């Protein structure tokens, strides 16, 4: 099937789905300062741009060997993009850009996570506020199957900007909003019981007296249709382990494949960026549409905010 024909088929098929999109707006309590960080965030691609990108991509993968995943659209299936057998997580040049000022919105809503596993091991991850004391992240940041289950403690540091440690109380230039130690989490059975990466998402609930979200704000949430997601240029920012400790790095790229529960893109990522928000910036509004979870070949991936994820998050955000 020709790529253009496929695209038109997808557009037609998701028209009904598009009508069911759900949006929950974010909150930015602090006025002033640039809304932009290291570079202008990207807006939605036009369909023409998306099609050009898809055609370019298809040209690139003409000699591909592997096929995985099915793009399901409103009850029927179309052929998935063919997946080339390439072996990079950083796709080509590393395009990540350091966020210099993490005290402006939305960068301050993004959190460095220091995770203490039940067996004593330490991990680094990323999260993002979605409510006054609720931080969205990956399921594997709070429930670690190889390390004994639920994290013993997670230190949540909004807008961290380097430094080896935060002061035990108050704020500092590298921990501009201090931190909160959390021991309460919520995830779903699909991840906790079934170890299914399609359900790899969770929230961290901060202590009731540490509603740091009221200070830093949060981005909104969006459950977008497949038609809106394919080709969409999205942003992600997090705390990779291969960069100076506790520094935040941003990147953006297009969504190249979508399933009912996953998003795939070539945003450059590394270990430590699990749980990073993947968001759309459109008409001055930011809405998280996925939670970064995995590096892979050829795509990196996120848990998609679909109907049930969106409904869960809306229910959890005001815990």
């Amino acid at each position, binding site marked *: 099937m020709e790529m253009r024909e496929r695209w038109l088929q997808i557009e037609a098929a998701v028209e009904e789905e598009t009508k069911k999109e759900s949006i929950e707006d974010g909150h930015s309590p602090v006025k002033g300062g640039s809304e932009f960080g290291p570079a202008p965030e990207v807006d939605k691609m036009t369909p023409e741009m998306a099609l050009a990108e898809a055609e370019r991509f298809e040209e690139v993968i003409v000699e591909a060997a592997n096929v995985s995943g099915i793009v399901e659209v409103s009850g029927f299936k179309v052929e998935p993009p063919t997946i080339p057998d390439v072996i990079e997580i950083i796709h080509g040049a590393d395009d990540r850009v350091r966020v210099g000022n993490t005290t402006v919105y939305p960068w301050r809503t993004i959190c460095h996570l220091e995770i203490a596993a039940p067996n004593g091991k330490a991990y680094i991850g990323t999260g993002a506020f979605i409510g006054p004391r609720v931080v969205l992240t*990956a399921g*594997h940041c709070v429930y*670690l199957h190889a390390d*004994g289950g639920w994290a013993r403690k997670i230190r949540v540091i909004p807008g961290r900007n380097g430094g080896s440690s935060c002061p035990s109380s108050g704020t500092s230039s590298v921990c501009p909003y201090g931190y909160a130690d959390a021991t309460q989490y919520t995830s779903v059975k699909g991840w906790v019981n079934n*170890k299914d990466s399609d359900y790899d998402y969770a929230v961290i609930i901060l202590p009731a007296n540490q509603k740091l979200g009221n200070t830093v704000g949060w981005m909104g949430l969006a459950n977008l249709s497949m038609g809106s997601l394919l080709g969409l240029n999205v942003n992600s920012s997090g705390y*990779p*382990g291969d960069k100076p400790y506790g520094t935040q790095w941003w990147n953006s790229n297009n969504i190249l494949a979508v399933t009912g529960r996953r998003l795939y893109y070539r945003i450059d990522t590394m270990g*430590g960026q699990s749980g990073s928000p993947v968001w759309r910036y459109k008409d001055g509004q930011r809405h998280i549409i996925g939670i970064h979870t995995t590096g892979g070949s050829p795509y*990196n991936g996120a848990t998609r905010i679909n109907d049930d994820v969106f409904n869960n998050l809306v229910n959890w955000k005001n815990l």
Partner: protein
Amino acid sequence: MRIEGTVVEVYETWPLQLSIEAADGLYHIGLHPDTKIKRRGHPAGAMEIKDHVRIAIDGTISGPKALLADSIELL
């Protein structure tokens, strides 16, 4: 314990977590910061652990179908 399998997912915490498909099912693997990663006996980087890559892991059982990796050989 030593198991062999194919990488299914690379979870991007730091250090990484993996799921691999072995002969007797899906395993979850936790790496240490000092987990030794090798290819044909030579040191390799964590970035070389990718989906679809076959690996052998020496490590400690940490739960049902769960392992903490002391070393990983890229096969």
